[in-house]
């Protein structure tokens, strides 16, 4: 791990430049994710400023960018619609507390239990949901709406192939917003969805009744936000570790996400987490240190102040077009091939995760279900023991534990040879069930007058066996 000084000042020039690029790229997305969540654009912009700035200091993965994200926006849609902004802010603060707790408990270790089939299901369902959420913004719209949508998609797709200095989504916003204003075009804008407050973020206590009822309302959302936020953040951290060939402190990152979300909630921002796309933009642009994340946050604030009057004039189909492209790049297109080449159980887990997310509209439920199903598949896979017999010697291949002993007992009980040898060279005794199963088989066979010899038990199994049968 690098020293703190290296993490901050090891790459000053490139960090400043990449931070500026990220801030420019963040603006359209933060606005679009706010609209996705059903809150004022400033809520997402403030959240992005706060998350980036705080995470720069307390995060565990230098150069990772955290802000308002699509994943978090999707979780809070119903909360905002049913109870309003202040419940969202309270839920954001509670999310932070849960994340700090999970970080202290060492959540990073648990992340290793999440199989890639669930991760692929997660990113794909996220992409699908973001895409579906854009449809109402252009379907049934007028001709100009569709023209703007298509021009935006074209700009975002083609411009980066020739010109990389300014993020393409921002170019689309600038050109098309200007066009809409100058030509007085009849197209829905961000302003049509609600008023934009032009104050700077200030400390505020969420205006909610401090009752158990309130707690019961926000807790499910906070749990889902904590899970989804950490999942995406730790996946992003892993990707950045790989890209930069450096290590990161995942539990520190989890705690940092928590701290950032608490401050975020008190400053009027929506819950956020790390962003895979923006973090990759940062690294590709040369960002390596904490300074890049800090510059992204601070420069974003500068842009918010400078551009706040323009935000309301941004045409909605432009944001929808940007989000369509975000969805396209968030979708893991490699999973189409994966669906045909990966083991069937993995494909089943991926599809189940996606279907459950789409059905429940809840990323957290899909992920948790996916993890449970894949864990069951894993147990059933490793509980298969292969038993072959020649002349009274039974070779056991595969681990013996509570889920695999049944087949072992059933087959060995039927042994008819006068002298039975059980060869455990390719097996391992894991628990009380396995030792019990051996004792059971031996006594059954001996009752029938057969003799039994056990060979090839490895030292660990032998120690367990002797301990559990009471020998020492």
């Amino acid at each position: 791990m690098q020293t703190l000084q290296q993490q901050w000042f090891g790459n000053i020039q490139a960090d400043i430049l990449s931070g500026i690029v990220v801030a420019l790229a963040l603006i359209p997305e933060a606005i679009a994710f706010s609209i996705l969540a059903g809150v004022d654009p400033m809520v997402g912009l403030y959240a992005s400023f706060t998350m980036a700035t705080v995470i720069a200091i307390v995060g565990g993965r230098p150069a990772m960018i955290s802000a308002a994200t699509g994943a978090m926006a999707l979780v809070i849609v119903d909360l905002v619609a049913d109870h309003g902004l202040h419940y969202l802010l309270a839920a954001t603060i509670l999310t932070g507390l849960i994340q700090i707790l999970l970080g202290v408990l060492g959540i990073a270790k648990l992340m290793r239990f999440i199989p890639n089939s669930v991760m692929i299901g997660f990113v794909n369902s996220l992409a699908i949901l973001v895409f579906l959420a854009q449809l109402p913004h252009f379907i049934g719209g007028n001709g100009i709406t569709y023209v703007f949508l298509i021009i935006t998609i074209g700009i975002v797709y083609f411009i980066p192939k020739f010109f990389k200095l300014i993020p393409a989504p921002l170019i689309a916003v600038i050109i098309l917003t200007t066009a809409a204003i100058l030509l007085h075009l009849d197209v829905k804008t961000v302003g049509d969805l609600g008023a934009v407050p032009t104050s700077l973020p200030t400390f505020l206590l969420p205006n909610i009744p401090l009752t158990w009822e309130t707690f019961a309302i926000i807790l499910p959302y906070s749990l889902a936000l904590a899970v989804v936020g950490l999942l995406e953040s730790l996946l992003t951290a892993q990707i950045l570790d790989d890209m930069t060939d450096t290590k990161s402190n995942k539990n520190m990152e989890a705690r940092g996400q928590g701290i950032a979300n608490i401050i975020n909630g008190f400053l009027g921002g929506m819950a956020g987490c790390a962003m895979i796309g923006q973090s990759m933009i940062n690294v590709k642009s040369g960002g390596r240190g904490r300074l890049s994340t800090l510059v992204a946050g601070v420069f974003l604030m500068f842009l918010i102040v400078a551009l706040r009057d323009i935000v309301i004039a941004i045409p909605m189909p432009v944001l929808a077009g940007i989000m369509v492209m975000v969805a396209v790049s968030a979708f893991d297109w490699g999973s189409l091939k994966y669906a045909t080449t990966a083991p069937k159980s993995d494909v089943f887990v991926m599809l189940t995760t996606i279907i459950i997310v789409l059905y429940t509209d809840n990323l957290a439920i899909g992920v948790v279900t996916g993890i449970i199903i894949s864990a069951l598949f894993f147990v059933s896979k490793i509980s298969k023991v292969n038993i072959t017999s020649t002349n009274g010697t039974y070779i056991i291949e595969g681990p013996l534990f509570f889920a695999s002993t049944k087949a072992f007992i059933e087959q060995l009980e039927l042994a008819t040879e006068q002298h039975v040898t059980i060869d455990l060279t390719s097996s391992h005794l894991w628990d009380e069930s396995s030792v019990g199963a051996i004792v059971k088989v031996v006594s059954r066979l001996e009752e029938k007058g057969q003799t039994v010899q056990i060979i090839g038990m490895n030292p660990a199994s032998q120690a367990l066996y002797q301990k559990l049968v009471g020998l020492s």
Partner: protein
Amino acid sequence: MYQHIVLAADGSENALRAAREAVKIATLSPNTLVDIIYVASFDQARADMLHAASPDSLLLERKRKVATVEQLLLEAQIHYKVTILKGEPAPEIIKYVNAQAVDLVIIGSRGLNGLQEMVLGSVSHKVMKRVNCPALIVK
């Protein structure tokens, strides 16, 4: 002769052809080191991580990409090492080669992605233009 040869490999058929030429040249003198470099592209970083069971299995996956090339050098008893770089393929190869005393770069003429080559230009072409040492492009 050529003491330090850099061989760019990406798991493609063309990289294998380049490796065969590398073997021919390396066998000309006894102390040649063939430096096999594989660039894990930034654009693939997310997909790579999503499809790998763990960072360790990802490392293995990347090592497998150069395994056929490695096999070739092993059979010819040529001294070699494998280096995995991260970034955009062409600039990373160029940076690596120009940063040390390399006598020759050998690279296949066309990598995995035909469409990308049409739009972005080929990696081998960029490498040839910008390295400070002789380059052999293998068709």
